[in-house]
């Protein structure tokens, strides 16, 4: 017979944060870590009188999988699957950041065809990541129906990427020096067909959700972030561009073959509310999907035909100890940066991954004073934080 279990209690007296919260008849609630709308396992200590919050302190670390420590054990190529898990919704970008950092350590160039394969895979992944983001945002605000619409489109992209590299979610497609597999035959037509189909869906999505009156009423004027505050807290990606400051790593510090494409970068204008509010962040993501379709069309048209997918990489990658490299890429969630210090032997000495979601969590405490709990949910959804990026 089982012994009666002792129910765990939060040891209230030891929590540092309680010394700074004056509990004056307010409730101190845990929102999370298991919660359908916290985008992964994130906990919020919410001090509230029932609906209006005084503070919401985020607590992270529930998905800390020690990926950086594992980076000190794995070989350079062997670390690639772990970078998938750093941001599993936009895994190609994490792969690309690592590949670019190690290629910079080695000082090597990769063939142009491989770059185009990377771009096609990454832009498809950007669309699928933004589909999850806008779908869950609509669901968190209360409209459950658009989420299966987004998932349905995402299934098409999952099929395309599965045909390319064999996996639906954690791709492990890129390698140090190129990509793992060549595009299968007939792939260009399939991607073209998807892009044609998807742009019509985007217009339908805009009619259904983005310019929906109730949606606008929920999200306009919610937690506006000024460009100065965003830069101080180091917000990146669509969060920063929604505040009106148009910085995109693909345009400002071009890498790979992005200089050969023509695309716009959507910048928030405060169309239906304040500039930099939650609706602007949502709108930026929807428009970025449209621009990704544009890039895909150009990439398919301009691809070289030599089919060279890997550069010449030594069998065992050994780099002198102490060499360090820094790579920046524009991931779906913003500016993802890898700081790699090479170690003696075949592995790295230190891997530090700076993700957009980690710094976005730092701003939630400051923004959440005076918001209602339902607004907190919408705020987290609009910042598009995912737990694995925060915790790594």
């Amino acid at each position, binding site marked *: 017979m*089982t*012994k009666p*279990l*002792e*129910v*765990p*209690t*939060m*040891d209230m007296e030891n929590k540092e944060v309680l010394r700074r919260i004056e509990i004056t008849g307010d409730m101190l609630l845990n929102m999370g*870590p*298991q*919660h*359908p709308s916290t985008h*992964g*396992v994130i906990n919020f200590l919410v001090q509230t009188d029932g609906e209006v919050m005084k503070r919401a302190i985020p607590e992270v*670390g*529930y*998905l*800390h*999988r*020690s*990926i950086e*420590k*594992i980076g000190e*054990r794995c070989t350079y190529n062997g670390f690639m*699957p*772990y970078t*998938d*898990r750093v941001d*599993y*919704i936009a895994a190609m970008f994490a792969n690309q950041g690592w590949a670019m950092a190690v290629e910079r350590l080695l000082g090597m160039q990769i063939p142009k065809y491989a770059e185009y394969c990377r771009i096609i895979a990454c832009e498809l992944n950007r669309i699928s990541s933004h589909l*999850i983001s806008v779908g869950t945002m609509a669901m968190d605000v209360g409209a459950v129906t658009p989420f*299966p619409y987004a*998932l*349905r489109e*995402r*299934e098409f992209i*999952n099929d395309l990427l599965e045909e390319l590299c064999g996996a*639906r*979610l*954690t791709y492990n497609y890129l390698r140090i020096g190129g990509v793992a597999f060549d595009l299968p035959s007939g792939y260009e037509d399939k991607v073209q067909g998807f892009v044609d189909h998807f742009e019509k869906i985007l217009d339908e999505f805009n009619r259904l959700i983005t310019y929906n009156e109730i949606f606008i009423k929920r999200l306009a004027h919610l937690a506006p972030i000024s460009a100065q505050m965003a830069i101080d807290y180091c917000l990146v990606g669509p969060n920063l561009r929604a505040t009106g400051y148009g910085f995109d790593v693909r345009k400002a510090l071009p890498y790979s073959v992005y200089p050969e494409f023509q695309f716009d970068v959507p910048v928030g204008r405060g169309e239906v509310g304040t500039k930099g509010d939650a609706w602007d962040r949502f709108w930026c993501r929807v428009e970025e999907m449209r621009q990704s379709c544009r890039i895909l069309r150009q990439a398919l048209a301009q691809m070289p035909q030599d089919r060279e997918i890997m550069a010449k990489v030594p069998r065992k990658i050994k780099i002198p100890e102490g060499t360090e490299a820094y790579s920046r890429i524009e991931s779906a969630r913003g500016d993802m940066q890898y700081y790699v210090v090479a170690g003696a032997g075949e592995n790295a000495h230190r891997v530090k991954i700076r993700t957009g979601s980690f710094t976005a969590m730092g701003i939630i405490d400051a923004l959440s004073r005076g918001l209602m709990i339902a607004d907190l949910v919408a705020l987290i959804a609009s910042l598009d934080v995912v*737990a*694995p990026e925060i915790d790594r």
Partner: protein
Amino acid sequence: MPKNYQQDFGSIITSKTSFIDEIINLARKSSIFYLLFGLACCGIELMQTGGPRADIDRFGSVPRATPRQSDLMIVAGTLTYKMAERCRLLYEQMAEPKYVISMGSCASCGGLFQYAYSVCKGVDKLVPVDIYVPGCPPRPEALTEGLMRVQDKIMRERWFNARQKVGQPQPSLGIDYKVTA
């Protein structure tokens, strides 16, 4: 419906269920509400399994956010030590009879994070697992198969002759987990 057969995993031999048992179990297996416990990458595949293509709503399974209303907990993703206490708490808050699917290799055995200092090497150190679904992440079809196996388990339970869940391991599998604040 097969009335008596040997389970092909473990060494537990099931026994006959009567007609009333089968009717009751048919009703129970056709509406398994699962707790949304998506922790990591497998959580996204869990969402996709509930999504339009590999729809498990056709089997009557809908996601519930609260453990009080669910009878199946699908642990989808990596369990860290920080999350472990909450996982056990949620399992305790579910009402009997309850089942656990350990989805993905991280939940089953720690997955590819064997050298991680903060990852619990398998959720069965904390909660008794009924079905292990391998994969990284498992395809929606694989998770649906896992759900089918839970349904098979439910079909084999007896209600009148012996009120004992056949094949259900003792609650304190693995470590005798006693939480101390």
